[in-house]
């Protein structure tokens, strides 16, 4: 009997290859002889007009094949890059050109594109391009953007790209004003970035004989890049294949597309008749990919004596950088997901999405939720402090109850659909997280530590995460005559373990052996209809599609087998790739044979296929392939849910702060997580571990240190402090809750982003608790926080 694989911690099939260094990333793709390499001339100024570009010194450099500037671009390539997600509130959306036209708006913006025999020569040539700039004042930071003393774009007054207001549950300002208790908070959260170890990269080969383009790119959406390249290069979709090889991390930055280089590489490859490669270096990644997180927040809250929210009135200022290719997704997520597991009473939220002369902002793992969670959880802590109540109890009285699902907030979510939570059990989750950290006895532990001169503190933060947004994903399952099962789904993989979990789902549904399943992702030749890997959606969307496609293949296998075995379909079972009559296992056919039978043949190539040739099978009175059938043992299906499914979680951390040096040490990190039905608990825990590690980085180490002229001061791994293994918690205590989603056949919710969401909130709370900096109200209002900043905070609070 086959063991059901759903819910098993199956070893990742990816790991042998990846851990042995046998992965093939974009830079490893061998496109044959004649490969040329590209490098990009980037703006050294945050804001400037381009007066002149002098290429004289470059064109003589031996080994330089082409130098492109804006003036070389024609047709759609000369138009701005796409604005991927338009929104009516984005009244002043702007996107950059593939190569800057007249003006640059951040340090790192692409100005010219050099193609040479190798990257060394290309970089030498970059140094010889003479660009004359007329430097303009730079707008850096939310304060400067809001003040609008200078404008990023001349035609965008107030640097305001968009203003969006949503409200639900009544007149929030009036409710707050009338509430028995009121508080207001001003909060600040800084930028960080995804920082995948593999940066962006693209290789293209134009094949004149076939009149088609092959493109390998490190992306989270191969179908998106394919469509963009086709539009920009004036090609039909059918002329463009996009293949996403192994990807060394995405975390969101690779869902933005097309990057200028994703267009310029194929553009140059076609023009030069030679394959071209661009592989970004680390400094380029810092200054020309994307960042996220920077917001300023103002919260007005009214509540009753129990800490129950009566009214919540929030205003957000979101720094979206120099352009808005990804629309308003991040601030929309912040403004809706801010509510977490709570009933807000009357809620109004307004966000202002602002231009600055800095790198663009697009979703980074969590995608606006960390900021929303930070605003709400800092508010919960402030309410508890104000009322002198236990912080967990204040949260408890505000939780949505298990019998209130589906819970409609009356807001519009990032997918344009109602913000409606499908399922969850938040009170049970709160009990679990409290148990993991011995919440109720922590006060005593804290007092004992204080008696030894030690400062320890506990923080708690809760979140709800809309995952698995549409529009759809599809899957194709093909049983070969060998019995091997080839599965294709169009979204891409960045190391999540898709090959493993999708194979688990196929093995379970089809009844084949797990080891016979091979999964391909992100290859438009295999599955041309797909959306992409983002928003914690791969398991929900492609997982469901794979399950449905496997079911179709199974139905066909049973139908053919029933005919061949002269049995009723209802009496058949498929176990380990063999269809047999229940109770009569000797009456059987393996899936490979069924695949042979599914495809009527004129020609035989081996013993197995003889069985399907024209003198062996078929009713001479009927067509070999029935009118409503097709050859082959395949299943293809798509999954398109009505709306997102909502995962949830609660994190708690215990920290110790050094009274002298203000060092911050993590003593315990605990997570309770609910992503519905678990496909593979080991992979989910891995996602949580990775998310927590990234969250520790965002809360305690990382920031984008721009100076007032828009220069990024820490654009290297020496000064941008991504945590090492020595900085993340030794162990993370994880407990799961499984409330299945009613929205998909398997009850799955997404898990990819969860681990990172509460980090700023939970560390702010724990450090503040350790420090006891509360006499004059909430002390930690800006994250991330470093030892130096904690020390300065102590000075400001005379709490040395």
């Amino acid at each position, binding site marked *: 009997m086959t063991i059901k694989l759903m819910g098993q911690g199956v070893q990742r099939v990816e790991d042998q290859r990846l851990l042995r260094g046998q992965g093939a990333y974009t830079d490893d793709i061998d496109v044959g002889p004649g490969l040329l390499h590209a490098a990009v001339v980037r703006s050294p100024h945050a804001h400037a007009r381009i007066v002149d570009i002098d290429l004289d010194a470059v064109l003589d450099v031996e080994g330089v094949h082409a130098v492109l500037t804006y003036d070389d671009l024609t047709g759609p390539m000369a138009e701005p890059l796409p604005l991927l997600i338009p929104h009516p509130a984005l009244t002043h959306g702007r996107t950059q050109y593939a190569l800057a036209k007249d003006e640059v708006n951040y340090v790192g913006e692409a100005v010219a594109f050099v193609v040479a025999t190798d990257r*060394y020569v290309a*970089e030498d040539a970059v140094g010889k391009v003479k660009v004359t700039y007329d430097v303009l004042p730079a707008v850096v930071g939310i304060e400067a953007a809001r003040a609008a003393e200078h404008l990023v774009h001349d035609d965008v007054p107030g640097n305001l790209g968009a203003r969006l207001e949503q409200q639900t549950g009544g007149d929030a300002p009036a409710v707050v004003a009338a509430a028995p208790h009121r508080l207001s908070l001003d909060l600040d959260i800084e930028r960080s970035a995804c920082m995948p170890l593999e940066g962006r990269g693209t290789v293209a080969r134009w094949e004149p004989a076939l009149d088609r383009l092959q493109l390998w790119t490190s992306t989270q959406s191969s179908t998106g890049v394919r469509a963009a390249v086709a539009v920009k290069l004036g090609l039909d979709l059918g002329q463009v294949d996009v293949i996403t090889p192994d990807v060394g991390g995405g975390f969101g930055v690779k869902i933005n597309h097309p990057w200028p280089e994703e267009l310029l590489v194929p553009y140059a490859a076609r023009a030069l008749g030679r394959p071209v490669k661009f592989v970004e270096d680390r400094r380029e990644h810092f200054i020309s990919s994307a960042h996220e997180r920077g917001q300023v927040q103002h919260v007005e809250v009214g509540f009753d004596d129990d800490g129950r929210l009566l009214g919540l009135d929030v205003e957000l200022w979101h720094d979206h950088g120099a352009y808005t290719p990804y629309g308003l997704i991040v601030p929309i997520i912040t403004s809706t997901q801010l509510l977490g597991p709570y009933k807000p009473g009357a809620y109004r939220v307004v966000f202002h999405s602002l231009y600055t002369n800095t790198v663009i902002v697009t979703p980074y793992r969590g995608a606006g939720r960390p900021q929303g969670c930070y605003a709400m959880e800092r508010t919960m802590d402030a309410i508890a402090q104000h009322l002198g109540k236990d912080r967990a109890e204040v949260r408890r009285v505000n939780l949505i109850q298990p019998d209130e699902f589906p819970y409609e907030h009356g807001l519009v979510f990032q997918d344009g659909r109602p913000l409606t939570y499908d399922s969850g059990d938040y009170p049970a989750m709160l009990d679990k997280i409290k148990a993991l950290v011995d919440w109720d006895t922590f006060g005593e532990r804290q007092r004992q530590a204080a008696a030894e001169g030690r400062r320890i503190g506990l923080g708690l933060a809760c979140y709800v995460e809309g995952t698995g947004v549409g529009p759809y994903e599809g899957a194709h399952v093909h049983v070969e005559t060998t019995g091997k099962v080839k599965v294709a789904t169009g979204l891409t993989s960045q190391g999540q373990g898709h090959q493993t979990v999708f194979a688990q789902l196929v093995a379970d549904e089809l009844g084949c052996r797990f080891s016979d399943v091979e999964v391909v992702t992100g290859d438009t030749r295999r599955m041309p209809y797909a959306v992409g890997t983002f928003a914690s959606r791969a398991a929900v969307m492609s997982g469901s599609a794979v399950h449905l496609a496997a079911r179709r293949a199974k139905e066909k296998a049973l139908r053919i087998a029933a005919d061949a075995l002269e049995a009723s379909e209802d009496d058949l079972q498929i176990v380990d790739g063999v269809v047999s009559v229940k109770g009569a296992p000797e009456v059987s056919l393996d899936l490979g044979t069924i695949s042979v039978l599914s495809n009527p043949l004129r020609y035989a190539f081996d013993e197995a296929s003889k069985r399907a040739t024209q003198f062996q099978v078929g009713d001479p009175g009927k067509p070999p392939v029935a009118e409503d059938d097709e050859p082959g043992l395949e299943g293809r299906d798509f999954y398109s849910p009505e709306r997102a499914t909502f995962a949830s979680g609660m994190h708690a951390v215990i920290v110790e702060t050094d009274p002298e040096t*203000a060092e911050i040490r993590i003593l315990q990190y605990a997570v309770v997580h609910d992503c519905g039905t678990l496909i593979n608990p080991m992979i989910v825990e891995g996602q949580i571990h990775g998310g927590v590690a990234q969250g520790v980085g965002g809360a305690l180490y990382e920031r984008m240190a721009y100076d007032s002229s828009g220069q990024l*001061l820490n654009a290297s791994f020496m*000064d941008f*402090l991504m945590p090492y293994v020595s900085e993340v918690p030794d162990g993370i205590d994880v407990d799961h809750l499984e409330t299945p989603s009613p929205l998909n056949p398997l009850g799955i919710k997404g898990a990819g982003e969860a681990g990172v969401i509460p980090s700023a909130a939970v560390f702010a709370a724990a450090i503040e608790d350790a420090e006891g900096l509360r006499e004059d109200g909430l002390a930690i209002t800006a994250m991330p926080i470093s030892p*130096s900043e904690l*020390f300065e905070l102590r000075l400001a609070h005379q709490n040395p």
Partner: protein
Amino acid sequence: MKPAPFAYHRPRTLDEAVALLGSEPDAKVMAGGQSLVPLLTMRLAAPATIVDISAVEGLDTLTADDGGVRIGAMVRHADVLASPDVRRVQPLVTAALSHVAHPTIRNRGTTVGSIVHADAAAEMPVVLAVLGGTVEVVGGAGRRTIAAADLFVGPLESSLAPDEVATSAWFPALADDAGVGFAELARRHGDYAMVGVAAHVDASSARVGYLSVNDVPTVVDVTGVDAADAGEAALAHLEPGGDVHASAAYRAQLVRVLTARVLREAHEDRQGRGAA
């Protein structure tokens, strides 16, 4: 991140190396390459010529005897760190080396290279300075010995002439009645420290060296000052600055805290050696 073109030489003898440094334009010595290669690839440095001394004979000798520790120019940090003789003769060298970057960097990087790179954020220049060590150099004008006090003249600037190459560094042995201590605080394990402190005490003196505080490695004499007050006293000779990792006030705080900790450690070390 590819370096600009440069000429590359890998001489076999010191004479050859010195001759190349004297004759080739804009030449730079490379030993372990752990500081130079990143500067090259980021194009922050673009010397016309690299003189790689890794094949020069006689530079890979490490000796530790009653007089002190002598480290040849091609001896890797990892080998110095692993040497029980070095630990016995001058434990401050070993203590500080464990804070130098990460194992992979210590496997390639050289201690002498780190010293003459003269980075005020590096550990080994301060150790040399606080112990009063020396560096041997050879150049067109012959051999000479440079005292640590005369070696560090500015940020990333040593007093070696362009045609000189350092052949070894010498650290005096720890006297029987002396003790040492070292501590630093970095944002992440193995990073450059926000502040680092090395101390040497004996019956009649107490000296403390600071890294990442002034723009050159700086030694302050705190003889006769209580450990608890020594950092404050030292600040009169220091100019802690602010950067993206630490404010000036925080650096000053770390000077106070780490100075007290390291001096206590050095006194304990001295007592542990049986000194009165």
